[in-house]
């Protein structure tokens, strides 16, 4: 089916989210929509899916204009959408979720009665029925078979990894016979392996004649999967490019200026040990042994990058270091034992913390930007005197921070949740870097951010390093590790399996992250392999 958007315009108050956007997608094409956060990609797709009504413009399917006023209309027009945040019921099984809204029902019928001369034929009860679970299961199995979407129809959604939940969403769309599939930032929540699986599935779907709109701000993915790339900036289409276009060109098209994809930094000048972790053991949410005997040091003036596929104990490591999760082992900050200190005392001792889940742990969405900027210093001068908050100082300081860190917000009283992801992260970064920190504990600092914001955050981290802070960077993005780390520690199944210099090849690093790093020059004398935790090399 050929999809065409003509002159789509959508205004929210004074903001023009979509400005006369034209888009033609031939059948069987994977089209990438590339743009920064807030560029208007999602709004455009919400227009297409009937979640938002456009102020101007029209949608054509196979050259026929269609009106789409609700997701129901969109589904009828065979447009399917997989949202950034999944719309699944966690306690339902896959089959139940997939059939939700289009439940196939076996009509309940009354038994026919024949008694003497009386004869009552079987009657179908109007709106009552039995859920046809068997049919639902069969549908799921058939679709997963056809497109290689491996999913167990009887698994409960809450027990499934994110990547599989996404497949459930895709199956949901396919079951409604979607011929245009919109994937909104589908890779934001996936591991590299899951991303590859998704790409394989996308190609299968393409081979089946479906067109796919792939929304992303990640250049590499777009280049890898798309047949054509449409770049959107500030609500306008600024260009269409083939996937062979260079990183630099796409990035500057997207941001509107030339960007540094990799921050320039001087070689590290590490000095004294700031963070000294020995034999740390942490248990996870469900009691699993998540961090197993991890030991490492971070020195002042260096960035130690912890690489690893998400879910190998990095989250638990960070939470344990912040005192958010009980742990066994020794943690020393500048020589002082903080292993049993409260989160508050650790923050006071000079740890800056940028948590992995920005919207959940880093910010209070309903609080103003100003309040978020003092979230962990609210009881210290100048923001408080005694037990009274100093509102004027809070406001003034917030204004200064917003200026300094270039947070794009209408005012410091704006609720943080209304900011774009990049600007939210700038608020967190501004807060944590505005006090004296000896150690910066930074987890997935640029997840979901656009190129411009990534550049900004990376520069700030290097600035902190150069000012003498020790930086512990946890990231599952290899690019980020390579861009920032002065040393790389690889985490696999709760252990640090190797320390490497940043000159390590991507293949070797990938192998180590997958648990295949047997030949470890540092620990090979002892006994290689992931069973033995790597020992920190002594540094002079």
């Amino acid at each position, binding site marked *: 089916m050929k999809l065409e958007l003509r002159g789509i315009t959508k205004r*929210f*108050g004074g903001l023009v*989210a979509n400005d006369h956007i034209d888009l033609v997608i031939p059948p069987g094409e994977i089209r990438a929509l590339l743009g920064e956060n807030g560029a208007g*990609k999602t*709004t455009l797709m919400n227009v297409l899916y009937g979640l938002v009504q456009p102020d101007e413009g029209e949608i054509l399917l196979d050259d026929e204009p269609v009106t789409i006023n609700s997701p129901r209309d969109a589904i009828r027009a065979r447009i399917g959408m997989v949202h950034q945040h999944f719309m699944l019921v966690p306690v339902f099984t896959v089959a139940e979720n997939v059939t939700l809204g289009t439940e196939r029902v076996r009509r309940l019928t009354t038994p026919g009665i024949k008694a003497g001369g009386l004869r009552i034929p079987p009657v179908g009860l109007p709106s009552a029925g039995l859920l046809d679970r068997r049919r639902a299961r069969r549908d799921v199995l058939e679709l997963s078979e056809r497109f290689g979407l491996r999913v167990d129809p009887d698994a409960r959604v809450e027990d499934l990894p994110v990547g599989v939940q996404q497949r459930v969403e895709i199956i949901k769309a396919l079951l409604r016979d979607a011929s245009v599939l919109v994937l909104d930032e589908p890779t934001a929540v996936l591991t590299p392996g899951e991303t590859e699986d998704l790409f394989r599935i996308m190609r299968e779907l393409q081979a089946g004649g479906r067109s796919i709109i792939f929304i992303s701000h990640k250049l590499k993915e777009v280049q890898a999967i798309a047949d054509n790339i449409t770049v959107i900036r500030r609500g306008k289409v600024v260009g269409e490019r083939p996937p062979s276009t260079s990183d630099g060109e796409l990035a500057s098209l997207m941001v509107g200026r030339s960007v540094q994809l990799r921050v320039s930094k001087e070689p590290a000048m590490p000095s004294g040990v700031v963070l000294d972790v020995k034999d740390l053991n942490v248990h996870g949410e469900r009691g699993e042994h998540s961090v197993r005997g991890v030991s490492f040091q971070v020195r002042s003036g260096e960035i130690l990058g912890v690489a690893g596929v998400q879910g190998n104990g990095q989250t638990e490591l960070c939470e344990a270091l912040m005192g958010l999760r009980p742990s066994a082992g020794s943690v020393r900050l500048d020589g002082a034992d903080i292993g049993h200190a409260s989160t508050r005392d650790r923050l006071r001792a000079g740890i800056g913390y940028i948590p992995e*889940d920005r919207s959940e742990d880093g910010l*209070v969405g309903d609080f103003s930007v100003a309040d978020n900027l003092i979230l962990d210093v609210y009881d210290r001068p100048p923001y408080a005197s005694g037990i*009274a*908050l100093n509102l004027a100082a809070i406001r003034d300081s917030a204004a200064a921070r917003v200026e300094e860190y270039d947070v794009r917000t209408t005012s410091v009283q704006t609720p943080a949740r209304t900011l774009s992801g990049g600007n939210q992260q700038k608020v967190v970064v501004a807060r944590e870097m505005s006090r004296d920190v000896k150690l910066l504990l930074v987890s997935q600092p640029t997840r979901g951010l656009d190129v411009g914001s990534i550049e900004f955050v990376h520069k700030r981290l290097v600035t902190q390093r150069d000012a003498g802070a020790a930086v512990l960077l946890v990231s599952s993005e290899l690019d980020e590790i390579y861009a920032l780390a002065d040393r790389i520690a690889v985490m696999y199944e709760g252990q640090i399996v190797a320390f490497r210099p940043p000159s390590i090849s991507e293949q070797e690093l990938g192998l180590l992250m997958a648990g295949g790093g047997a030949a470890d020059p540092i620990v090979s004398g002892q006994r290689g392999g992931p069973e033995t935790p790597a020992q920190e090399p002594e540094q002079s």
Partner: protein
Amino acid sequence: MSDQHEADPAAAPAATATATGAGDGTPAPERPHGRLPLTGSAIIQAVTEGHTAVITILAVFVALVIGAILIVASDPVVLRAWDSFGYAPGTALSATWNSVAAAYSALFEGSIFNPSTVAAAFHGGSIAAIFFPLSLTAFEATPLILTGLSVAVCFRAGMFNIGAAGQWIGGALVATWLGYAVNLPIVLHAVVCIIGAFIGGAAIGWIVGEVKARTGAHEVILTIMLNYIMYNLLSFLLSSQNLMQAPGQTNQVAPNIASSATLPHVGGPPPQVGVGFLIAIAAAAATAWLLSRSTLGFQFRTVGASPSAARSAGISVERVWVLAFLIAGGLAGLSATTIVQGQTAPLTFNSYGTYGFDGITVALLGRARPWGVVMAGLLFGALDAGGTVMEAATGVPADVTNVIEALIVLFVAAPPLIRLLFRLRASGGTGPQAVAPKGWSG
């Protein structure tokens, strides 16, 4: 930890309600990947953020309209007139109008202002009598404002305080005992009783906070169960001559408190404002300051808005639970003492009335904001005060005002309903957020 995943069944419909309310039916709750925001905070957020002054006013209006229907239904004259609607429609309509107008006039005259008192004042009557209805309203509002504040403090810290009734009894017991068993000079005695009531209520609140902090038990269960314990404790203490039963009594009645412990009235004869009302206003001012201007209030609000972000920022969530319930209990205790020390009747088993639960509705209507609670308390106080007058003057049962109160809260708690009734645009239609549901821009 545990509260992140607790599936509060009651929260689900509220979460849906906010989502549909914000986005005209679009399924778009802000949802961090994988986790579902099915906490009680969804309800609390819907209450504290969800509605505007316009909605409140419209809710009051709709409730009064429905109340009018009840008034009509309770009036046999009007019902008979409607029977003959076919050939005398004018009679039916005018009877309806007369009945409703008479009832609501009486309600207004009994709670706010009675024009005949002005006329009387011109003919040598008391000028002070003009303010008599208002003083009745303030009197009725006093305990409601305080229990409303109690519930509101917990709301702001992300918790439901269903236990204001139990905390009320805690405060009442201590104040009563101090009032009759201790001899102190006149002003000091009253002050000691007030402080004692605060401590008595706070102690009961503290139990809830402490148990929740130590074991993770849900505060709704704890407070409901503690309410039963307190009802029965009160009954037990008031039934035993050796304990708190008034000497020579067989009923569940405590001794009268000493006159040195009673709260005086300010402003001379009949239209007077009890010191209890001043305590309620002072408590509202203190709570407002605590919540918006103090570091402790900042902790309360942070925990209320996002426990996980609070933890990451080094705020002890457990400590906030304990302190919020401590303060909430104290406020409920103060509510009790405005009755114990403010009235001439001694404490009985029925003294706690419905103050604790009315506090929930007052806090909901006041959007858990201290001054909002004061306004809501006054509104309810006015309905209570006027209802009595209405019943006396027109025979319409005062229960109608209770229905009106309940309807107001119902409509306020369901803003989409009011928007639907009046076809309002979501949140007044200002800025992109009003139109675009959360999490969908960009």
